[in-house]
């Protein structure tokens, strides 16, 4: 058996250089971030990711 989740979540915004951002130009801040890897075992209640 399998469970598929499909959901909408914030993409994150591209920070401007004016804000003093020094990361890669494609990097985004905020938004949804995954906390899992392919093949990882998870249990109920553990975070798959965060907004």
């Amino acid at each position: 058996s399998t469970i598929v989740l499909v959901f909408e979540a914030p993409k994150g915004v591209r920070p401007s250089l004016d804000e003093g951002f020094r990361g890669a130009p494609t990097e985004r801040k905020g938004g949804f971030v995954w906390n899992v890897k392919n093949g990882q075992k998870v249990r109920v209640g553990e975070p798959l990711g965060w907004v």
Partner: protein
Amino acid sequence: LNAALKNTKVKWEPIPIALGIGFLGAFQFYRVQRREKHTQSQAGSDTEDAGVDQQGRPQKRERVRPSGPWTVQIMSTLPLKAMSRLWGRFNELEIPYYLRVPGFKLYSFIFGVNLDEVSEPDLHVYPNLASFFYRTLKPGARPLDPNPNAVLSPADGKVIQYGTIEHGEVEQVKGVTYSLDALLGSIRPSKPALTDGRETSDHTHTKVGAEDVMRADEEFANVNGISYTLPNLFSGPQPKDKNTPTEMPSDQATSPQPSSEAAVRADLALSESTRPWWAPASAKTPTALYYCVIYLAPGDYHRFHSPVSWVVESRRHFAGELYSVSPYLQRTLPGLFTLNERVVLLGRWRWGFFSYIPVGATNVGSIKVNFDRELRTNSLTTDTAADRAAELARQKGEPYSGFAEASYANASRLLGGHALQRGEEMGGFQLG
């Protein structure tokens, strides 16, 4: 037994080859006849659309034969649903009292069940494997992540695939994708006539308005004794206007120099009319569609929980096939999740669209949803209902959508659906 084995005379005889050849010939003849019949039914109809016959009527449901390696081809010839039901019946047979504990311990050893966290310490209580398989856990065995912004794992299992959805396509494995429309259904959530949770096949295909699905101006609601703060549930960006039978006025569409306001309106109207119903449509906070596939192995706890606080507005039941969903078949059978029987729960959460799709498999074909007592999966009744829905659509001259839909709008008039808290048990998979 020893004497019988030693003294019985063994006589070897050649298998009647002619009988075997005759059987294969007859089987091949039957296949050719069937193929020709199928070809004839499709020939000479250029206007024929997907599933629509020459009179413009949709055809009956037909079993989809997937492409794939020989293992998949062999599997597609098997009566998987009948096997699944038989498997379910077999597992409901009562196990003799004194065999229960050793039997369940052997099962736990093979499939890695942690018996320490099972809520019932006395394994004699479980009369059969089906009830042990659908066991509950001790309170506190699965603590929820304290971060309120976390999307929790809905079940025990293994993450098979995750990522973002680009152009409405979900990547099953590298390079193999399937469309989100095929997974969730391609029609906007409808408002069926029966809104008391009963399954209905009579799709009205009414487009749901924004006021039907949320009332974000309400501050608090109390559903099933649980208080929700609606801004917390719904403060995310919402689609601008879902009342969109947005046909572009021809004068605007063709006007050479429209005013700036008209141009913006035309832009919005065009984007609304071309946007799929599930796609993000927020302007303030940019959003994307994310997906995650979690595979539950036979030894895992087989109840599933809500990953976030959300409101389920409707349910779509696709009475498909019941292929195995093992990681091997997920790699080799393209579009597996769009073939199998599944329950699509559609709704909204803080950031917009949310859907939750339990997909059945051969050994666990029965999907149970706690708040939907009318839902019946992997049953002859369901198959009959699906056939009836296809027949009804045929009579009305409408295309068969492939699913039966029920709305939970009456579960809570304030929320427009059934509210679920993060971590709340939603249902589970049962054997057979």
